């Protein structure tokens, strides 16, 4: 699913060394939390998985694609096997809930009938049935994040990667969201969540990979958040 082997990454524009010989692998169907302080390299790891940046050295395999060698025009193929979720939801403001989700299916060339069947199903799964016609600015933060999850989920991706998905939500909504991720994971989708929420991470008891100064400092499968964030 994800295999990182001695991955190092330097941002050429600033010369910053973001990752230093990082190695780990995430298997199909796993639920993994990626934790670490600001500037530790978590977001760079996310960007490497989605193909936004390329490593200086090392090997990265994401859903069977070699991310170091992949041609730029082939990147959409990798991204269609992923569902990406951001802290700021990133919904298209002038599209309603239904269209924001259907849009991801149109991108991959799905037929109208498929879209009409799949979108209501996914919206119901994330608890947004009946809100299809609402515009993003008419929804709460938690609801907007659910739309983003529905959009990430609608193409049946092999893996969902979420960058601080609860960053703008209150604790109750954050827990609801994590339980939703757990439900999706139970259906077979791999989940990778970057987060700061210590209580949430420990409450769910999943695998935790901790990063600091661009290096993996712990990889605990017991689900205990044993790294103290500054």
């Amino acid at each position, binding site marked *: 699913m994800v295999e990182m082997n001695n991955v190092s990454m330097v941002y050429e524009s600033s010369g910053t060394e973001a990752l230093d010989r990082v190695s780990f692998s995430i298997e199909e169907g796993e639920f993994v939390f990626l934790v670490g302080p600001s500037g530790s390299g978590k977001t760079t790891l996310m960007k490497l998985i989605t193909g936004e940046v390329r490593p200086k050295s090392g090997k990265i395999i994401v859903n069977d694609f070699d991310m170091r060698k992949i041609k730029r*025009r082939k990147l959409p*193929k*990798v*991204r269609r096997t992923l569902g*990406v979720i951001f802290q700021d939801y990133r919904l*298209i403001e002038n599209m309603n809930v239904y269209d924001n989700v259907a849009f*991801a299916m149109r*991108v991959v*060339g799905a037929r109208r009938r498929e879209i009409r069947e799949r979108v209501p199903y996914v919206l119901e799964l994330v608890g947004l049935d009946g809100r299809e016609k609402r515009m993003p600015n008419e929804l709460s933060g938690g609801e907007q994040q659910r739309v983003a999850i529905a959009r990430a989920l609608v*193409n049946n991706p092999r893996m969902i990667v979420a960058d601080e998905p609860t960053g703008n939500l209150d604790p109750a909504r954050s827990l609801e969201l994590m339980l939703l991720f757990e439900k999706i994971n139970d259906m077979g989708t791999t989940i990778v969540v970057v987060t700061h929420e210590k209580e949430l991470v420990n409450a769910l008891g999943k695998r935790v990979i901790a990063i600091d100064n661009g290096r993996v400092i712990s990889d605990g499968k017991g689900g205990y958040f044993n790294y103290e964030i500054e």
Partner: protein
Amino acid sequence: MRLNRSGYLIREGFRSIGTHSFMSFATVTIIMACLIIMGSVTLLSLNIDRLIKSLENQNEVVAFVDETYTEDSARALQGSIEGIDNISSVEFITRGQAFDNFMENYSSDLSEGLDDQVLRDRYVIHLTDIARMAETKSALESIEGIAKVKAHLDYAKTFITIRNVVSVVSLALIAMLVFVSIFIMSNTIKLATFGRREEIAIMKMVGASNGFIRLPFVVEGLVLGILGGGLGFLAEWGIYELLTKKVVNSVAGSFLAVIPFEQIALPMFIAYMGIGVIIGAFGGVNAIRNYLDV
């Protein structure tokens, strides 16, 4: 790309014009304004060129026939003159007519005691291209029976210089305006798409190919370009008609013959639509190029 997907992307392009109505309006207005400025300078230079050409045509060449020739044998030379390349019109004037013209233009004292046969039969000749006046003069002089040819080579040179200067200045001005207009138009389209970089980033993240992202922008650019070109053409037509009516009705206008718009409407329309389409489509593609590299 499947047909239903292309249909969706084309619809998206049209929908986007409505959802970003202010920027669409700004883009069409800028394209229109730039085309009107370019078109006006082109029309002005075309009219100046025509004016110079009409003045050039008034610069005639006179070929005098040998005085030993009878009127009939003098008339017989017309065929040889017309056979010369670069001759646009030939008019035969008998020595009697020439004398009458002289009498009309000068005081009768000057002609007192003169025989009306003192002048020569002649041909008044207009040329197609006065730049070739010297060469045509030589050709006329080589015709047997032509005694002398009077041609104002100095005038011709002045006209040619004026025409060349006007052509160069007009071309430079039009080229400059085209460059400035393309710059303004592509920046307006860039500005219009700047607000949509987030939308493009989302498209990329959900796995949209560059072609999928580009097509609605190309459709949008094409529609706005066609609208700008079409409206610009109509506005130019209106402005030109209004101005030419004013010029024709003025005192100076009685000496000027402006080009009727109908005569140049088709090439102008093609140019306006062509520039509109090219600017729109390339502007759309170029504006989002930087956002696609994610």
